[in-house]
């Protein structure tokens, strides 16, 4: 039996939670396969030790200055070497910016089966079955492999991080990676210019989505409600893409992740990337004309109706309640 290889990621100097979630999945579905891990980067011996002591099994370490920043060619070389060294039949990565960038490339190079952004993996009748969402969260899909080697990426937050301590080991991976291997060159890190709008500190957020239809509608419909409640205005990604509001207002995985006391979502369907940004809000109200919109799964209270009637009516009712 081939092994399960977990490709771990380091964030802010530590193995990130999403990687320990892969460890949880690996332990759930191991079925007798050995669990092995790969830690890559520069100066990562400590992180590799931590993973070895927390379910990572035999941890291979690719430690090179050329891996100090994420780089497609460097990471691909290290991961391929690890797959070969471990005879991996299942390779697990997280669907993070690194995962969605490199995992498909690795899979194509291996000519193996590939599935991304799984929210679950189950063993059913001796085979592994993969579950993920399609159509931006409107439908679920069940996938079955038709190959002996599979690379799967898993949605961060799909399960809980592995917590048990264990006896693992760390071994240097036999691979040399130098700057000459890297066709793309890392230039620098930057932040998208989020100036002055810190939604993470707002107690109340009124967010608008594509359903608003135009930039002016934010001024006309969303802003009055935000103001009367003393809250902040937010937006889903399509609003920012369309140029109706600045990126600073974006709530979601590539914007701000918020957990206010009250989150009102108007005209937002609830694609995964948006839900990641607001589903831990204390109380969520969703207004959308589509009763099947995925947002209603995370909302506490929902209104399947026309936001252009509901939101102004709510603004007026609050105005009156305040007297």
């Amino acid at each position, binding site marked *: 039996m081939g092994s399960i290889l977990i490709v771990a990621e380091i964030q802010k100097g530590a193995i990130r939670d999403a990687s320990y979630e892969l460890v949880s999945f690996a332990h759930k579905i191991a079925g007798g396969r050995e669990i092995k891990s790969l830690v890559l980067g520069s100066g990562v011996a400590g992180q590799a030790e931590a993973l070895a002591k927390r379910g990572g099994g035999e941890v291979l370490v690719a430690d090179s200055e050329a891996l100090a920043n994420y780089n497609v*060619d460097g990471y691909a070389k290290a991961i391929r070497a690890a797959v070969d060294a471990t005879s991996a039949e299942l390779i697990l990565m997280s669907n993070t*910016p690194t995962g*969605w*960038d*490199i995992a*498909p*490339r690795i899979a*194509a*190079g291996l*000519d*193996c*089966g*590939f*599935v*991304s952004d799984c929210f679950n993996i189950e063993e059913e009748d001796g085979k592994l079955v993969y579950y993920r*969402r399609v*159509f*931006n969260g409107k*439908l*679920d*899909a*069940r*996938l*079955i492999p038709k190959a002996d080697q*599979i690379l799967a990426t898993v949605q961060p937050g799909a399960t809980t991080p592995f917590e048990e301590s264990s006896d693992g080991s760390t071994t240097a991976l036999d691979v040399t990676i130098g700057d000459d291997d890297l*066709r*793309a*060159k*890392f*230039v620098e*890190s*930057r*932040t*998208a210019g989020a100036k002055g709008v810190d939604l993470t500190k707002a*107690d109340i957020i009124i967010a608008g989505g594509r359903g608003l239809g135009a930039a002016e509608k934010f001024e006309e419909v969303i802003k009055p409600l935000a103001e009367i*409640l003393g809250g902040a205005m937010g937006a889903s990604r*399509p609003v*920012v*893409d369309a*140029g109706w509001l600045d990126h600073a207002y*974006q709530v979601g995985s*590539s*914007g701000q*992740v918020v957990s206010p*006391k009250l989150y009102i979502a108007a005209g937002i369907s609830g694609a995964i990337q948006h839900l990641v940004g607001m589903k831990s809000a*204390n109380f969520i109200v*969703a207004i959308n004309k589509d009763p099947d919109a995925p947002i209603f*799964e995370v*909302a506490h*209270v*929902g*209104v*399947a109706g026309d936001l252009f*009637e*509901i939101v*102004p*009516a*709510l603004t007026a*009712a609050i105005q009156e*309640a305040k007297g």
Partner: protein
Amino acid sequence: MKILVCLKQVPHQDARLDVNADGTWITEDNIKFEINNYDTYALEEALRTKDAGEAEVVVVSIGPDRVTQALRTALGMGADRAVHVKDPEMDGSDVLGIAKALAAVAKEEAPDLILMGMMGDDGNFAAVGPMLAELHGVPHATAVVKCEKKNGGYEVERELEGGALQVYQLPTPCLLGVQTGINQVRYASLKGIMAAKKKPFAVKTAADLGLAGQVGAAGAKMSIEKVYVPPKGEGAEMIEGSAADVAQALVGKIRELGLL
């Protein structure tokens, strides 16, 4: 220079989706199709490069007859030439099969730059771009939110979580998987749509591209066994009634939260 833009035709983003009879996908009857939203941004990026200087923009798409419309739209927007991979043998391809077909087209075209959206709005796999880059043997970057011709190649910004970005310099030829919002997508002008009718339009089969046995359901290494409406959890407490009734009910909830 030559830019190859890979487009996918997908159900319109507001189309009502019904699971088909055998539960394997959605039914295509009676729904409108459009170019995948992410791919429109890739096409726009290519057309801007063309506007700025000498560039031939070739668009390619895989699928049945209906895909012709998507390619004609792209030609109407300003692309120079279209390649339609049309063959029932492609049915049931997994993402790797799709990438192999596109790699065969890329090999024939030898573009300086390949652009495509980072994912499809239907499958959301976000896989074909990096796979194609590997098969075609070129460097790539995905989630690209900015791309600038610089130092003989491209300087790109790729999007990370929480508003963070990383900047890379890539040589050409390369492949870029583009994120939404990288630009503002143009509409096809009437003049453009009329001109599109005369633009070269090639149709290729799997055999033309040497893909025997590698594509379609037969070649797939991962198979979608079924799609289904997600089981509804408790979900939201739905409030009904007139706008005024709903507003009153919500005011009550907001009061209970101590926020009024």
